[in-house]
Every structure is written in C-alpha cells, then in structure tokens.
C-alpha cells in the first residue's frame, strides 16, 4: 500500500479516535481530579490527535513532493510565463485567438502522456463494505497533490484552532456555566453544566469528516462524509442550544444545506446510474483495478470529451479502455454537473443559498473559524474542484456566474455590517465566490490556490476577532470598539497581516522589472491567489467578450473587499476608543490564543511565496486535469499561456483597485472625510437595502416560508376535519364493538373458565383427604386396587 495512503489514512482516523475517546470517556474526564473544575484532558486528547494528523500529513506531503516528481522551478508554466514578455503579449494573444484549438495540441505533451497521468494521483481501496453486482460500496482513497495540500492545510489550521479553543472555551470547564445570553422567565440567566469535552469531541468529529471527504476515492464515500460535515456543522453552530438564535441558526444551516444536497443527490444518482461505478478513477495502488473511474470515462488523457450527434440528440461517449461505446445524453451530464454544483452551492454558501453562513456566527468563534476556513465551506469548493473533469462548459458557465454574483452581493453587504464577525462572514462568502468563479472560468489551480491561502488568512482573522471578542468580554459590535491595538497588540497586528493578505496589497516587482524578478512580488499570500483569479477572469473575458461581466465583478469587488476589511480594522483597532468603559476592561488574550494567531499569521503571509511559480501553486497544478474545449460549445477556456499573457495587466488593475479601496477606508474611518454617517444618511435607501442583506431572507420568507405555511394550514384543516373525523368514527366503532366483546368475555368465556376452575378445585379438595402422606397406606391402596381390579375383571369376563 502506498506510503502516502498509509499516512493519510492514519491522519484521517486519528480524530475519530479522539472523538470516540472523548464521547465515551467524557463523563470520566468530567470527574477527573481538579475540584469542581473539569480537566482539560479532552482538549489535550483532541489537540494531540489532530496535531499528530498534521505531522503525518506533512510527512505525506514531503513524500508526495518526491513521488509526483515535481520539477518546481523549471515547470513549463514558469518557462512559458517567463519567456512571454508583456510587449508581444498581444500578438501571441492574437495567434491564440485565431487558433483556439491549437492550445490543446500545444498542451498535449505535458499532462497528456500516460505516465505523467499515472503519476499525478494514487488511488486504491482501503476496505470493501459490500458488493451488489457491479456496484461496490467501499472505502477508497484518491490521493493527488490537491489531497495532500488539503490535508496539510486542514490539519494545520484545525490544530491552531484547537489550541485557540482551549483558551476560548475555558469558561466551559465548570459545572455551573452561566450563559448570559439566555434569559429565563424569572429574569435570571441560564445555569448549565459546561460542555467542554463535548465541544472538543465535536471538533474532532468535524475534522474527521472533512479529512474523510478530502481522502474519499468514490462518490459514495464523498456523499457520506459530505453529510457528516453537515451534521458536525449543525452540532457546532447550535452548540449553545439554549440560545434561540443559535438553535435557529443551526436549523437554518442544516435546512439550507439540505436544499443543496437535494441537487447533489440527484447529480450523484445520475452519475452512478449512467456510469455504473462509484470510483473517481481506476485503482493504481491496490484493489481490483478492473473498471475505469468517472473521470477517465468522461475525459481521455488529453482532457477531451467525445461528443457525438446521434438521433437521440447529443451524447457524450464514454472513454473506456476496452473501447465499448457506452454513452450518456449530453443534457443528462449537464444536469448531473448542475446537481453536484447545487450541493457545492449549499455547502459553501453561494448565491442563492448564502444566507445561512452569517447566521452561523452564532456558534463559538473557533467553530466559525473552522467552518469558514478549513472545513465546511472549503468542502464545497474542494468538491467543485474534485468534480471539475465532469463539468461541461454550460455547468462551468453557471458556476462562474454564481460565483460572480455571490462575491459582489456578499461584498456589498459586508460594507455595512457592523458586527465584527458578520463582516468576516460576508467576506468569506465573497472570497468563496472568487474561488467558484475561478473554477468556473477554468482556472482550476487558481481557484484552489485561493482556497488554500484564504483558508489561512481567514482562519487567522477569525481567531483574531475571537481574541478581540474574548478581550472585550463578548462584545461583537465594532461601533463600540476602537483603538484596541494599544490594548491587544499581537491580535491587532496579526489581524493586520490577514487584512493585507485578503486585500491583496503588494509591491509588484513583476510588473516593474519583469525580466529579473518575474513572480517575485513582495506580497502576502492573498495577493498571489487573487491575482491569479483576476488574471484568469481577464483572459476569459478577452476570449469570450460576451462574458466580460465575469471580469468586472471580481475586479470591482477586489476594491470593495479592501474597503470593508480596512474599515473593519480601523473600526476595531485604530483611532480613539468609542466606548471608554469597554476599552478599560478589555485585555490581551493569553498565549494559548495568541500563539495560534502568530503561527497562522506566518502562514497567511508566506504560504504562497513565489506566486504562480511558487511551490504551492506548482503542487496544486500537478493534479489539475487539463480540459479541452468541448466541440460545439461557445466557450473557450483560457490556457496557461493566455493567462500568462494577461497576468501583468490583471495584477496592476487588481492592485490599483485594492489600493483605492484601502485609501477610501483610511479617509473615511481615520480622517472622517468624508464622514461615513453623512454618506449613510444620503444613501439611506441603499444602506437600508444592504443592511437587510439585499432582503434575501424576506424574499425567501415570501417565496417559500409563507406559501408553505398557507398550504400547511390547508392540510392541517383537512387533517382535522376529514381524516380525524374518519379516524374518530373508527375509534368510536371500535369502542362500542369492544364493549360488546367485553360483555361476552366477562359473561361467557370467563364464566366457563371460572366454572372449570371451581370444579377442579372441588375435586382436588375432595381428593386431598386421600393423600395422607403415609407410605404404608399407599401400599395398602395399591394392593387393594390390584385385588379389586382382579375381582372386577373376573366378574366382567367370567368366561376368560
């Protein structure tokens, strides 16, 4: 079995062990020594599990870097990028424009040759659960560089968050936890035993599910862990069940996800029924490597989809090694893609299902951090990336537009939000929109690149906000903060790192002196990833001018992002304290919380060094399935050359917009010119509209909730009158009948039984006297009996 598979499997199962131990041993840790305060044992266990998972994944990553023979510094991308000066970019673009088909040919060498194809993933079977004919339910693993990177990222961030949570959830380690946000009828606050170990158990389960999803090698497993992730998010968001808001938020998250999962299931069903296999690819590590997987069937090594015009309309011919011409209707495959994407929409809160994510802030801040960075929402993007080969151009277009709308809408809402965590939440949504957009545009590597970087700086910012909230005694309103950087420097400056990263500010050497320092901008991770996305979008817009909107949306939003992120930072940490009393009481968090901040800040800053020539990007692009344009689709997907051409311009534009946004934020919230309140008053309507989050909740309320209520009331009326009527009639009849039955029972049956019993008793009593218990009398009876028998016989049959 492949060494990476071993390591990752272990890393995946460790949190499950932690979960089991804590759930079943929780009561014990409850009563562990330490007076009425509970031990931190549970926390240590889960930190140990996930930390060990991190180490194992790191080792696996190292192995992977060697196994997938990564040539990091002279990869074809880099070469093409470096010998593509900005000057003749347009010319090359013209060539590209005339012969779009040529890109595929030019590209065929790199990912096309079989051995490279063989080398960029390892897949196999861990354990076979059941087999029904051709369908196998099994625990498979599919490991490529994406899997490795995701594992490392998830485990690292989860470790930091666990450590942070030790400090954050410290007040849960008591038998008398007072929840100040729950008011009981008598006006007092709720007193409940703390749920320290439950919390860490859930966290462990969460990590287990996410890792399982990442490791999954077949659709069945993907679905299982997909739902597990949903469950865990439900548990954790609703951790403070006593708070009405929390429970409703949990329900909302769960139900909205169900809506997405509905589509997801449909997609999976289509795939399974039409492909007849669960597996992504044929095994090349261990297990029967008989049947080819989905990805190989849809696209051949060159990433081409065979579309035929048959009398049933357009069909996609499967690419099977034995050349059997099985096929699936084109529209069906599109539907499958859309369904799977619907699932991703639900999970990673894309338009129109984005409404659950802000409410998910009700959970403890570490949970928010985990949900927003590593696990929950990342799952959606990861899945979209994983199923990328299955998506047809129409689906990709849908994904792109959804992402564009999402990122813009969320950003605008974030501008007016005042709750520090909500701002972050909306920013998350819009960043996810970026990723989706990138995937939809065919910038697969760019999207997942952004996923990784975003995971780092978003978790960093959430933890920082958590530290702020703890410092300010659970005050989340930015309007009451201010000038906190003096009180909590570490939090403030680590937060600043995150902010800069997400805004994508940088000193662009690439553009200045391209020859010597191409791809060596002085910048934090966010810049590189967002830059890659914007570049992809720009190229796309140039290839397909109709869809230019898909370039404008991210560009503008880059500015808005910079604006609201700095607004947040200035509100919180800069300027004068708005609430003196709060300011006096707030304090820097303990090391157990600031330590993870520093670690994450380091990664947020440096994880993407080198940009598209950097290690991370190269790693990811190793496992990118190169896709060719489907014949007969109006869409031309950009290739790496094109992107390389437009990279410089895109970088400059993004940087300028971001700078503008930053400047505006500085002016408004530090210089107070123009005064934000004035603007608020002038654009009252817009502000109102934004504050109400584009009235999505109202819309859904009107569209779904109320109609459902009405219909439900109809049905309940029907129930009450008709059905209940019938039932009651039956019941009454039953009662009467059984009344007769009872009379019959008591009268006749019992009568007979009692009579028999009495008779038996009488006989027994009469016979009782015979049993004297005297042996000798019995013998006497025997003898007499014999004699009597004899006499009787001779009296009756004298002749014998």
């Amino acid at each position, binding site marked *: 079995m492949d060494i990476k598979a071993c390591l990752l499997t272990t890393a995946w199962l460790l949190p499950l062990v932690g979960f089991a131990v804590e759930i079943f041993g929780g009561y014990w840790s409850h009563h562990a020594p330490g007076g009425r305060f509970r031990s931190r044992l549970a926390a240590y266990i889960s930190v140990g599990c996930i930390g060990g998972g991190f180490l194992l994944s790191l080792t696996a990553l190292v192995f992977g870097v060697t196994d997938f023979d990564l040539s990091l510094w002279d990869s074809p991308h880099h070469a093409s990028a470096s010998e593509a000066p900005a000057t003749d970019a347009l010319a090359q673009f013209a060539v590209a424009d005339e012969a779009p088909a040529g890109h595929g040919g030019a590209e065929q060498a790199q990912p096309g040759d079989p051995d490279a194809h063989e080398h960029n993933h390892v897949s196999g079977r861990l354990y076979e659960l059941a087999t029904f004919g051709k369908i196998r339910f099994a625990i498979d693993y599919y490991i490529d560089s994406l899997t490795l990177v995701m594992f490392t990222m998830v485990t690292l961030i989860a470790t930091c968050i666990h450590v942070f949570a030790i400090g954050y959830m410290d007040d849960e380690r008591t038998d008398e936890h007072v929840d100040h946000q729950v008011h009981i009828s008598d006006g007092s606050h709720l007193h409940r035993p703390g749920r320290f170990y439950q919390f860490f158990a859930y966290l462990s389960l969460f990590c287990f599910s996410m890792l399982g999803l990442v490791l999954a090698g077949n659709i069945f497993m993907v679905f299982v862990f997909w739902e597990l992730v949903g469950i865990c998010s439900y548990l954790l968001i609703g951790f403070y069940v006593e708070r009405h808001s929390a429970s409703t938020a949990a329900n909302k998250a769960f139900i909205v996800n169900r809506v997405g999962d509905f589509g997801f299931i449909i997609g999976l069903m289509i795939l399974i029924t039409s492909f007849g296999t669960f597996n992504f690819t044929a095994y090349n590590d261990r297990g029967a490597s008989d049947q080819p997987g989905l990805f190989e069937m849809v696209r051949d090594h060159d990433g081409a989809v065979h579309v035929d015009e048959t009398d049933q309309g357009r069909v996609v011919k499967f690419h099977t090694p034995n050349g059997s011409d099985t096929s699936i209707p084109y529209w069906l495959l599109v539907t499958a893609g859309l369904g799977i994407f619907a699932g991703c929409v639900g999970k990673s809160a894309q338009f129109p299902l984005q409404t659950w994510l802000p409410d998910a802030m009700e959970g403890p801040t570490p949970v928010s951090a985990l949900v927003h960075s590593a696990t929950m929402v990342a799952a959606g993007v990861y899945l979209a990336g994983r199923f990328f080969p299955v998506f047809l151009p129409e689906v990709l277009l849908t994904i792109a537009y959804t992402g564009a709308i999402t990122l813009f809408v969320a950003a605008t809402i974030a501008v007016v939000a005042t709750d520090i965590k909500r701002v972050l939440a909306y920013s998350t949504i819009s960043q996810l929109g970026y990723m989706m957009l990138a995937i939809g545009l065919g910038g697969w590597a760019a999207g997942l690149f952004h996923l990784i970087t975003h995971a780092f700086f978003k978790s960093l910012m959430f933890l920082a906000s958590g530290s702020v909230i703890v410092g300010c005694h659970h005050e989340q309103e930015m309007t009451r903060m201010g000038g906190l950087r003096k009180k909590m420097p570490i939090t403030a400056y680590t937060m600043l790192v995150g902010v800069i990263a997400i805004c994508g500010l940088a000193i662009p050497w690439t553009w200045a002196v391209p020859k010597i320092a191409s791809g060596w901008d002085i910048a934090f991770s966010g810049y590189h990833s967002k830059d890659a996305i914007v570049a992809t979008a720009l190229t796309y817009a140039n290839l397909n001018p109709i869809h230019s909107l898909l370039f404008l949306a991210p560009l503008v939003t880059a500015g808005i992002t910079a604006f609201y992120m700095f607004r947040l930072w200035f509100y919180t940490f800069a300027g004068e304290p708005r609430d003196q009393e709060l300011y006096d009481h707030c304090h820097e968090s303990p090391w157990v919380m600031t330590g993870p901040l520093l670690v994450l800040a380091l990664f947020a800053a440096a994880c993407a060094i080198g940009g598209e020539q950097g290690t991370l990007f190269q790693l990811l692009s190793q496992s990118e399935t190169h896709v060719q344009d489907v014949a007969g689709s109006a869409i031309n997907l950009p290739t790496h050359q094109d992107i390389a051409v437009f990279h410089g311009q895109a970088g400059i534009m993004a940087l300028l917009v971001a700078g503008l946004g930053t400047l505006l934020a500085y002016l408004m919230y530090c210089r107070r010119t123009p005064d934000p309140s004035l603007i608020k008053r002038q654009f009252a309507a817009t502000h109102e509209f934004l504050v109400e989050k584009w009235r999505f909740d109202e819309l859904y309320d009107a569209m779904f909730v109320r109609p459902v209520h009405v219909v439900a009331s109809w049905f309940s009326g029907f129930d009450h009158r008709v059905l209940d009527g019938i039932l009651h009639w039956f019941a009454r009849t039953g009662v009467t009948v059984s009344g007769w039955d009872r009379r019959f029972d008591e009268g006749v049956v019992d009568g007979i039984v009692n009579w028999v019993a009495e008779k038996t008793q009488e006989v027994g009593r009469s*016979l*009782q*006297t*015979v*049993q*004297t*218990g*005297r*042996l*000798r009398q019995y*013998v*006497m009876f*025997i*003898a007499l009996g014999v004699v009597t028998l004899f006499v009787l016989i001779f009296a009756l049959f004298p002749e014998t």
Partner: protein
Amino acid sequence: MDTSLTNYLLIGAVMFVSGVVCMATKRNGIAVLMGVELVLNGANINFVAFSRHTSLGLDGQVVSLFVIVLAAAEAAVALAIALNFYNNYQTIDIDRGDKLQG
C-alpha cells in the same frame, strides 16, 4: 424328575405377598426396605422359574440379574435416604414423615 413350575410360582407369590404386607404394615423404614427386597425376590423367582420351564429361556435369568443389581442400587440409595430421615426426625418411624399430606 423336576418339580413343577407351579410350586416355584407359589413360593414366589408367598414372598411377594409377604413383601407387600411387610411394606404395608411395618412402621420401621428399614423394614419397609426389607419388604421391597422380598417383593423383588418373589419376582426374581418367577423369572428364573419361567426361564427354566418356558420359552423365556435365558432371558429370564438375565432379567433377574438386572433385577438383583438394581435392587442393590436401590437399597443403597434408599438406605441413604432412610439415614437422612433418621438424622432429621430422630426416628425411623416413617409415619412421622407425613409432611406431604394434603
């Protein structure tokens, strides 16, 4: 010459009946056991006599052997019971052992 079968049967009858009467009249537990032995022997005499004089053949003797052996076993257990009885009631008079009367 041989004595006729009837005489043996009569002897067996005498032993049998006296055994029954012994069981029926004696109050001493051991005496009751003796009665049982007498009954068994009466039966044994019949068996052996039949095996000598009728088509029963050797089977009669075999059966009587079984009877003898089982009688020995019965005597052992019954005697053990009698001794327990004696220990519990401090008497061997079986009329005292009428706890089971209705």
